[in-house]
């Protein structure tokens, strides 16, 4: 089974800085890493490869420094890594990103399955997976927890509104993978082997044969009009009384705020 996993480099939550003019993220290699949600997609790909054999190709769009996450994917178990990088891709929204990823995946060639994280910790839209499926005209299922291959079909499970859904879909398809449990940590040998065995393929706009009007700001259907930081106000409430009274008052307050039912 040939699997493509789409990953993204994100900036650590407490290190996020925005360009005051464009409102886009200022990236720094030191505090950037693979989007934690994408690790679940990679983990699922590794499990599927173990079970059904085949290959895993990791693909990301971003500036040169985002190749770091591809090395991480290779250590994790990917066999091939593709970086889609071109200054003209800068400031792409989710639509333009999905287009670039789609063009990259067309160039990668034949595949059975595309896996994505459910969302990223920075943009947090959760749109790229579904939009990529539309771009490639593939069926997609979001928030998948379990995948089985049955001939030309995938049988998948996902939790939705308190129900466990079992769905069948024809291959090729795209799934976003629900974050569940702890993700495996690669060993020192796996990390070293990634660097000695593999290299990163880097493709630009021309390599993808992509339409320049569909990428970057010109290809984006949305743009950030304004951005204002929200100051969160915290207050401290002292609950008086003996422990029993304090516990009762605390309980009432939690129920009042819908934190307990």
């Amino acid at each position: 089974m040939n699997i493509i996993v789409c990953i993204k480099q994100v900036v650590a939550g407490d290190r996020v800085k925005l360009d005051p003019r464009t409102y886009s993220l200022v990236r720094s290699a030191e505090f950037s890493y693979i989007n934690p949600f994408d690790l679940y997609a990679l983990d699922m790909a590794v499990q599927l490869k173990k079970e059904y054999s085949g290959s895993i190709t990791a693909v990301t769009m971003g500036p040169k420094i985002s190749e770091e996450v591809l090395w991480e994917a290779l250590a994790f178990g990917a066999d091939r890594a593709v970086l889609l990088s071109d200054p003209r891709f800068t400031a792409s929204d989710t639509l333009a990103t999905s287009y670039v990823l789609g063009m990259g995946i067309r160039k990668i060639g034949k595949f059975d399955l595309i896996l994505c994280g459910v969302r990223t910790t920075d943009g947090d839209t959760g749109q790229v997976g579904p939009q990529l499926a539309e771009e490639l005209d593939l069926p997609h299922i979001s928030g998948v927890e379990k995948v089985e291959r049955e001939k030309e079909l995938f049988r998948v499970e996902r939790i939705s509104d308190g129900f466990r859904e079992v769905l069948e879909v024809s291959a090729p398809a795209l799934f976003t993978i629900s974050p569940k449990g702890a993700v495996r940590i690669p060993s020192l040998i796996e990390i070293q082997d990634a660097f000695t065995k593999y290299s990163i393929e880097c493709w630009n706009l021309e390599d993808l044969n992509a339409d320049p009007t569909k990428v970057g700001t010109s290809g984006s259907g949305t743009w950030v009009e304004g951005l204002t930081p929200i100051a969160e106000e915290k207050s401290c409430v002292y609950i008086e009384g003996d422990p029993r009274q304090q516990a009762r008052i605390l309980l009432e307050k939690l129920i009042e705020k819908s934190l307990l039912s």
Partner: protein
Amino acid sequence: MDLTLSIQQKQIRRMVRQFAKAELAPIAKEIDEEGRFPWEVVEKMGPLNLFGMQAPRQYGGAQLESISYCLVIEEISRVCASMGLMLAVHNSVVVYPISQFGNDEQKAKFLPPLASGDKIGAFCLTEPNAGSDAMAIESTAIRDGDSYIVNANKIFVTNGGVADTLILFVSVDPEDVKKGFSAILVERGTPGFEVGLLENNCGMRANPVTSIILTDCRVPKANLLGREGEGFNIAMAALDIGRIGIAAQAVGIAQAALDASLKYAKERIQFRVPLARHQAIQMMLADMGTMVEAARLLTLKAAHVRDQGGELSGPSAMAKLFAGRTASKVASMGVQIHGGYGYSKDYPIERYFRDARATEIYEGTNEIQQIVIARELLKGGED
């Protein structure tokens, strides 16, 4: 000169940081208080190759370069110094000398289980009457056919309570210790082998530091590491390497003390503003940060010298001396910033303070490092 880490080194650091945060951070306080060796986490370190970091690939090791090795020890020690110590000793003064001085049979027999973490190593040099003065050892190994009969009383053995494979320094010639100084590999369970009492140390409490006693213990001649009389060189070569690991450990403790102090200084309000707004505290933090960075650079420099095959004694002694002092000083300043809470077990800074102190003592005290450094400086010619 390039002072940036490679992508690979950063990835290794991130991997270990993630592991330490997930597995060691939740138990570090508890295992220190209970003096408990956390087998449940130690078992997870083997599959990540943390027990065979620099061992050759053919024996199951990761064959890491020394900068990455330091990053791993620093990150583990930053969260739990006792486990940083366990790994540093296992990798640098047990696995390394076997890789370097062992013959093919010894490497094939001892390295795979050590590199996988199925067995844990220990280094036994110190005795009741021998420490910095290594030549004063009284342990003996007397030839008897194809064996040695070993009698030894080793103390302050790091990993002693859990070690399976131990490098023991003995004399094969009780009349002339200098001539007979030898290294011999001993396995736990050999008749006559006994683990002594657990030391009640002030820091590094999750590491089972014990004495090791051998009474008429028959050890195969095949377990002699190197040649008879070569033990002192083996011990010194291992300690040159080991000191880089202890320096990295000290950097990890110092970084933890700095992290805790920065956090506390932002949280604690005094005179209506956070501590961090007071210039007196800022100056302490500035000095702490500078010392930690300097210690890290000296440590990585020593690691670099090792990988370049340069003369290691001076750089590794300097790294250990400076990093050990830095850990103690920075942790002490951290206690000061925390005030009364710094003296309480409610905050981790007191653990860093206790743990840091050991790095100025084991694998060569500060004073031994100074002797090594002075000797290296004085033998050098003018540029």
